[in-house]
């Protein structure tokens, strides 16, 4: 085990995670005013109404797929008698479709950002950093999924997933990741890059998904004095 692998798969994940959590907490305290989707629908509606839902819906499925693939250990599905071929067919069909939808959605969104002058003018520097990384993560992930079509594919459930779960026990299984194919490694690295950008970009909007709305009375009353503190004079983030 060389030091590079230890650094990449034993140290970097914790750094990225710390930055994600601390960065988000700091931004929430310092720049709550900046927590927004910064919607550009006012400028352009037609392409967004296709690309936006396609990208986000695909992404939600991709996320669910990651939970199933990385968090659920292989032993559990085996004990539940889920046949190996069924599991993989499912991962390939659902995961592949969702991944393709996400990439297609993002392609539409990026096209829109470049071609619509108003949307282009509303693009911030953090967007410029996020879009390439996001696209790269998605493409790498899709490529990794594609490799499972091979005759004797790499079983990520015995490698990458083991490493991923070991991170949470604070005993990173560096070897499991070190022996994974390059696409998987690249995918993981880019994902970590995305997580470090997360708190400082518009991506924070994902953390404020308004699920509580489902349980709230329609009309909200508040006291005069109960407004949040005024936003400090600050530089805009993201």
């Amino acid at each position, binding site marked *: 085990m060389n030091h590079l692998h230890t650094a990449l798969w034993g140290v970097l994940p914790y750094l990225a995670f710390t930055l994600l959590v601390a960065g988000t907490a700091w931004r929430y305290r310092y720049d709550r005013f900046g*927590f927004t989707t910064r919607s550009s*629908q006012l400028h352009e509606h037609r392409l967004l109404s296709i690309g936006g839902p396609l990208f986000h819906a695909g992404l939600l499925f991709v996320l669910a797929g990651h939970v199933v693939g990385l968090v659920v250990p292989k032993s559990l599905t085996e004990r539940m008698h889920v046949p190996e071929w069924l599991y993989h067919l499912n991962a390939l069909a659902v995961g592949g479709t969702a991944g393709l939808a996400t990439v297609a959605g993002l392609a539409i969104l990026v096209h829109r950002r470049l071609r619509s002058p108003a949307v282009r003018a509303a693009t911030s520097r953090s967007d410029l950093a996020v879009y390439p990384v996001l696209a790269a993560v998605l493409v790498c992930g899709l490529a990794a999924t594609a490799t499972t079509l091979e005759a004797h594919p790499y079983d990520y459930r015995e490698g990458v997933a083991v490493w991923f779960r070991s991170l949470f026990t604070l005993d990173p299984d560096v070897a499991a990741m070190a022996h994974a194919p390059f696409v998987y490694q690249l995918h993981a690295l880019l994902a970590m890059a995305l997580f470090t950008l997360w708190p400082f970009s518009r991506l924070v909007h994902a953390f404020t998904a308004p699920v509580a709305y489902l349980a709230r009375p329609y*009309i909200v009353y508040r006291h005069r004095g109960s407004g949040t503190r005024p936003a400090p004079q600050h530089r805009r983030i993201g």
Partner: protein
Amino acid sequence: MPRGEATPGRVMAQVAMVMNLDKCIGCHTCSVTCKQTWTNRTGTEYAWFNNVETRPGQGYPRRYEDQDRWRGGWELKRGRLVPRSGGRARRLARLFANPELPTLDDYYEPWTYDYANLTQAPLGDDLPTAPPRSQIDGRAMAISAGPNWDDDLGGGPGHTAADPVLEKISDQVRLEYEQAFMFYLPRICEHCLNPSCVAVCPSGAMYKRIEDGIVLVDQDRCRGWRMCVSGCPYKKVYFNHATGKAEKCTLCYPRIEAGEPTVCSETCVGRLRYLGVILYDADRVGEAASVEDEQGLYEAQLGCFLDPADPGVARAAEEAGIPHDWVTAARESPVHALISRYRVALPLHPEYRTMPMVWYVPPLSPVVDALTRTGHDGEAPESLFGAIDTLRIPLAYLAELFTAGDTEPVEAALCRLAAMRTTMRRVNLGQEPDPDIARSVGMTEEEIHAMYRLLALAKYEERYVIPTSYTAEHGSPVDTGCSLEEAGGPGMYDPDGFHTAPAAPPAPGTATAPATDPSGASLAGRLNLLNWDGRGRPDGLFPRQEGPA
């Protein structure tokens, strides 16, 4: 109860407005002063918290009244009141792209002029010009729309004919009507009793203030889901495209809190705006808004308002934590008088079921003008009352605006105004008073005179009866609580902050929160690491040491 009123349930107070449309000259002073105060920033160029539209006309944003398209307000679904754009689940499903959001084309593309060209153009034969430039993407553009493009019926008949209210009236009426008259309709947020903008906000950032009913957007909680823009049937929430947050008319709450009128009222050239307190029974609002018959909504809303002269109401109000001076102000409220006592003010589009709280005295002048044009004496009682009845066209149009199409209340209001005119005419001409005129519209001579005072002569203090602000006691019956009200919890600030000097006004174009509650609260103990030059130990980096200094 001395007056036989039912016991009021939950008494709440609302600062409401009435505008007397007879007096509006369409000068747009109110719009401009409002803009200078609230929306002269990047991102809000197209936002007009106050706008003045010519009616008939499309309004701003164009055709905002077409609720089949924008789906604002509420609708009754099997007897239950739901936002017209759908319930909670449907709203969440539409988060990623909101199908009912107007784009900038429905407003207009804001522009500036390239003034630099005037001085920097190379020497030539032609005088240099200042060509228009888009404020959105900076490119050269052709101006093809504005916030009042069809002002004074400008823009051609095509514009006027696209008025959604006019479309509800038949074709024949339409033509005649265009020849008949036009008037101006100044609009701000209605600060509704049943605000649908609040109802559709997924993050709970929009709220109605318990103390004065003002509807605000908490800028720190808004996440830019832009549902409120669709939810408001009056299209009075605007999306700031630079900050990604919703903004709306604040009823100039910092002024109202200090007992001063809003900027639009203060600067109104026609002095046609009235501000005052209305006491209402919050428990009746839901029921009133769900009245089956749309034409019953006006009466239903009137039924929510409480008579502040009733000692039972006054007692209930004070038990509910409303201070004594607010109850006194409610008694002197010009708004209460015009709405409930004289019944000359009507709500704008009650059929949206949001229970709007900016009401309008419908314009009688167009009727008088039409009469005079046809060679009649526009102020003689016989011809004026007859004209109101026979000029069905303007009546039908006004009824579509103010009473969901029911001409009766509009007619009654116009007749009261006509009675006032003819009564005062007799006074001016030194003729015998004729009590029959007042009686014919169900008023007394004294009431007519009092109404005349209010509509024609009232000075500043009579037009704006605004008590200074208070904070409802927590735990009182109006306290519906707020999860953020833990001391030191998220969203709390130093309660004394309000009394300290306010922070410097934000520079135009910087990202600051314009519509949160006011406070000059210091950043108590918080540190901006981005501005830290890395030298020394900045204040607030570490917690202050306990114990005596």
